């Protein structure tokens, strides 16, 4: 018991550095997913038939192929085929980001469609281009409505980020495994890794709830 704790104590700084890697992975992926996802959603709602079809295929692909397959496909297949030399860490962010973009786009799309049609009409009636209307009127409202769904997506991406381990990214899970396989202290290490994931989930969703409250439009009851 004491021995386990000593090992764990010694390994904690190492695990914490992995936690930072995990946070960077998730932040990068969620950020990429936000930017790509918003554009996918706007294209899906307002785009022409061909654009909508193309986006449909994108979403079908990234929701349908398992994460591990996509990681290998991009890292060992696509990028090396194209002669682009990216670190495993970068590829993991890109793949996680492109996948969550597909899911996030559906959160945003639902939010956009839930807004009354009159919002866009009123914006157009004032002489706004569709682009201005979307940026100034539609998205500020749709993004507010998307926060709960986005928070859910965050907790999923956080967990999925552990799979980056398979590319050799030294995130939390990789480090826990590394120490555990050397010291045979499996239980305390994986337990700690799990606990840190839980704490990150808690902090992230809590933070997003605070944000949701902060940007809530006055006068609306929940």
């Amino acid at each position, binding site marked *: 018991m004491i021995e386990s704790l000593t090992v764990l104590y010694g390994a904690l700084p190492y695990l914490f550095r992995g936690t930072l890697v995990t946070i960077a992975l998730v932040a990068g992926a969620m950020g990429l997913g936000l930017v790509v996802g918003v554009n996918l959603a706007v294209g899906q709602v307002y785009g022409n038939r061909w654009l909508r079809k193309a986006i449909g295929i994108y979403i079908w692909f990234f929701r349908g192929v398992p994460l591990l397959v996509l990681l290998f496909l991009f890292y060992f297949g696509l990028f090396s085929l194209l002669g682009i030399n990216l670190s495993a860490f970068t590829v993991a962010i890109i793949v996680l980001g492109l996948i969550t973009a597909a899911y996030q786009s559906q959160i945003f799309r639902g939010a956009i469609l839930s807004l009354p049609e009159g*919002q866009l009409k*009123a914006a157009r*009636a004032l*002489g706004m281009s569709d682009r201005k209307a979307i940026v100034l*009127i539609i998205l*500020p409202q749709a993004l507010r409505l998307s926060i709960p769904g986005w928070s859910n997506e965050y907790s999923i991406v956080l967990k999925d980020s552990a799979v980056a381990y398979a590319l050799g990214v030294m995130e939390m899970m990789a480090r826990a495994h590394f120490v555990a396989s050397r010291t045979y202290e499996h239980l305390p290490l994986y337990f700690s890794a799990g606990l840190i994931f839980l704490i990150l989930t808690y902090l992230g969703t809590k933070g997003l709830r605070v944000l949701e409250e902060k940007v809530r439009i006055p*006068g609306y009851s929940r």
Partner: protein
Amino acid sequence: MAHRKTILRIEDMTKRYGSKTVLKNASLSLKEGELKILIGPSGGGKSTLLQCVNFLVKPDKGRIWLDGEEIIHSRKKELYAYRQKVGMIFQDFNLFDHLTALQNVQIALVKVKKKTKEQARTRAINELERVGLGDHIKKYPAQLSGGQKQRVSIARALAMDPKVMLLDEPTSALDPELISEVLDVIINLRLHGMTMIMSTHQIGFASELADELVFLEDGNILETGPPKKMLSDADCERTREFCSKITELYGNSF
């Protein structure tokens, strides 16, 4: 009256949804300072006609001139410039829900008319004061009553310096006790010479203030004429029927 110039001319406006024609060859023109009021049964095509005028609904056929210049709506720049000159008031207000009353009025001044923040703010406050909302500029739509919301939307339209205003049943979504505060603002616009087309069921208001009533049913403009004649002895049988029914329903005064 005859010497006043024509501001807006609509010719042969037609709109189909699928196989259903909801607007058939509607033609209309407005002289400077004129108020024309669209009346007619629900589903008759009033909203469609008004929204075709600023191309919120794309007509299948029809031409529009503002100040003698034809508007080609496929040219985006022209369309956006034209819409700035045509104020639109919706039945359900359509205020931007995430913006305060002040921001609602300000936003197009800054982002469309490219005024400075300061200019836009001053103008917006003026317009809101003019509709009696000087004390409510910081409120969000959800914190305003229906009558207040509609007045904000009128201020928002007026801030753009429109040449024409289109009002689509501006009081129909309001509780009865809030109707007059909005009608008062519209009366005031009328007195200041604003050119307007408005649809309404407020027949008393219409007969007092309109230059002409336009009766629209099943997408057809069946009759146009001065309110007195339309309400008491219209030429068209259907117009007479509708007018007597609506007078009964909404009363003669406002």
